[in-house]
């Protein structure tokens, strides 16, 4: 089971590595957005830095995950369908997207902090929050990308489908990272983290349960 999932992740990684196009465009997207935000705001106070940073992350994540089910052509999909258990495919896609989103959000943090200054006080906490947000984003976005895969105007539909689902995650993450930056002193952050993970687990369970029906198409 693990070997199959690992093989699928490796396949995606190798494909990306060889073409290199998606990676480089995503990274460029992150830095360009961060730079545009910097140019429009110039001096960014910490209470503005926090929401701006997460909005950049949100758009970057949607942009980078949107293609995860459409890179394969129709006949290749049929071939996979005969070969692979859909649950394993889903899990591998989620892990792959988690990798992508986490690396991109880390790069975004480095880039954004480089040009606008770094207001984060508790760096360890902040990196943990980046990871937790990556988990939530990749689970939700992978599932919505699977739903939107067969549609023509894919990117706009993906945004419509995923943004409302992502708002609870973003709200909790905003609060947690405001705590890590030192804007607020939040004593209930443990509870927020539990809420966030409970939501993630719910979405993950639903995604895995429902994906086989989508895959049969």
């Amino acid at each position, binding site marked *: 089971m693990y070997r199959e999932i690992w093989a699928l992740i490796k396949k995606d990684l190798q494909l990306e590595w060889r073409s290199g196009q998606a990676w480089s465009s995503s990274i460029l997207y992150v830095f360009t957005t961060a730079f545009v935000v910097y140019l429009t705001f110039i001096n960014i106070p910490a209470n503005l830095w926090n929401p701006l940073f997460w909005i950049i992350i949100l758009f970057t994540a949607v942009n980078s995950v949107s293609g995860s089910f459409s890179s394969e052509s129709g006949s290749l999909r049929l071939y996979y369908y005969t070969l692979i258990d859909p649950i394993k495919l889903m899990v591998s896609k989620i892990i792959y997207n988690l990798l992508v989103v986490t690396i991109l959000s880390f790069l975004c943090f480095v880039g954004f902090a480089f040009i606008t200054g770094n207001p984060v006080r508790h760096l360890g906490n902040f990196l943990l929050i980046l990871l937790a947000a990556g988990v939530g984003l990749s689970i939700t976005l992978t*599932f919505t990308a699977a*739903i*939107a895969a*067969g*549609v*023509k*105007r894919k990117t706009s*539909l993906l945004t*419509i*489908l995923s*943004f*409302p*689902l992502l*708002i*609870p995650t973003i709200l909790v993450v905003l609060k947690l990272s405001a705590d890590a930056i030192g804007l607020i002193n939040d004593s209930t952050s443990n*509870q927020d983290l539990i*809420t966030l993970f*409970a*939501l993630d687990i*719910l*979405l993950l369970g*639903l*995604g895995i349960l*429902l994906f086989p*029906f*989508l895959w*049969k*198409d």
Partner: protein
Amino acid sequence: MNVKKHWWKILGVAIVGYTLVAGLIVPLKPGIISVSHKSANAGDSLRIEVIGYNTHFEGGKEDLKLWLKGDTTFFIQGQDVMIADENTLEVTFVIPALLPFDRSVVELSLLIYNGIDGPFILPSAIFITHSPGSAGVQIGGWMKKIDLEIGSSRMAFPFRNILKETIRNTYFHVPLWFTMIFILIGSVFNALKYLRTGAIIYDEKSSAYATVGLLFGILGLLTGAVWAKNTWGAYWSFDIKQNMTAIALLIYFAYFVLRGSLEESTQKGKVSAVYNIFAFATLIPLLYIIPRLTDSLHPGAGGNPAFGGEDLDNTMRMVFYPAIIGWTLLAYWMGNLLHRAQTLKNKILFQ
């Protein structure tokens, strides 16, 4: 028309009609809107103006009595009552210098009784400051016990201080949400059936119920906003319950966008059934779990008690529960009509 088959539609309309009439016509119980002074010191002689609501001060003049009440055994009777009109009067309370309480600030409730209205009360009407330590001292000026006959038994809804007449919204706002949840459960049930059987009728039904559910959700949000304007002060108060509700409705709007952008009918059915189940599963935490975890003004959220218990008395139950049943029957009927209309449209289109 076959009455045996359609009785529930008649029942639904009759119940909704009943709740509209009863919910809007039955008056509120008498209550006290305000008193002119909120605080006093022990030993004062306090003259206050009392403004009542739906009260009969003039008509029930003969046996009108007023008390300030602390705990269950402390009463000060009002003197020199001067009645201005049915809803306004002035009264003097002579507050004794020594009060039997350990606290330095004593919260007293205003209790009014007359033969027409029966007893009614304004909790925490006046705060008295005194020097404690005199507890147990028995000095005149207050009574230990009063006897009241329970007033007339006219049918009336309870008077709550902030809610006032908006308490009637209980028969609209809350049942509309209940109905939305019921009809969306119906929608998810049909979506599951579609995924199991693949029969297109279940997909059509599921989408029709989801449409009606969304309509009821919007109505619930609007009635809630009107209620919030009157009790919280603004239509939208950045309350977690309101925000999460808006998000939940956005998720359902996305369902229809998704349906609109898929063309081939089996793919459309499958994808939208999957999304429907997904949307319903995220609706429950958004509406009922997350608001409970953080601060909120809404009853049942942020540690507030849910509306019910002492707020929902038997008179209100007589309208509230039928309202839920009536709206649900109506919504089910609407869903079926919508489904039939769509089926006919498809028939004409693909003939």
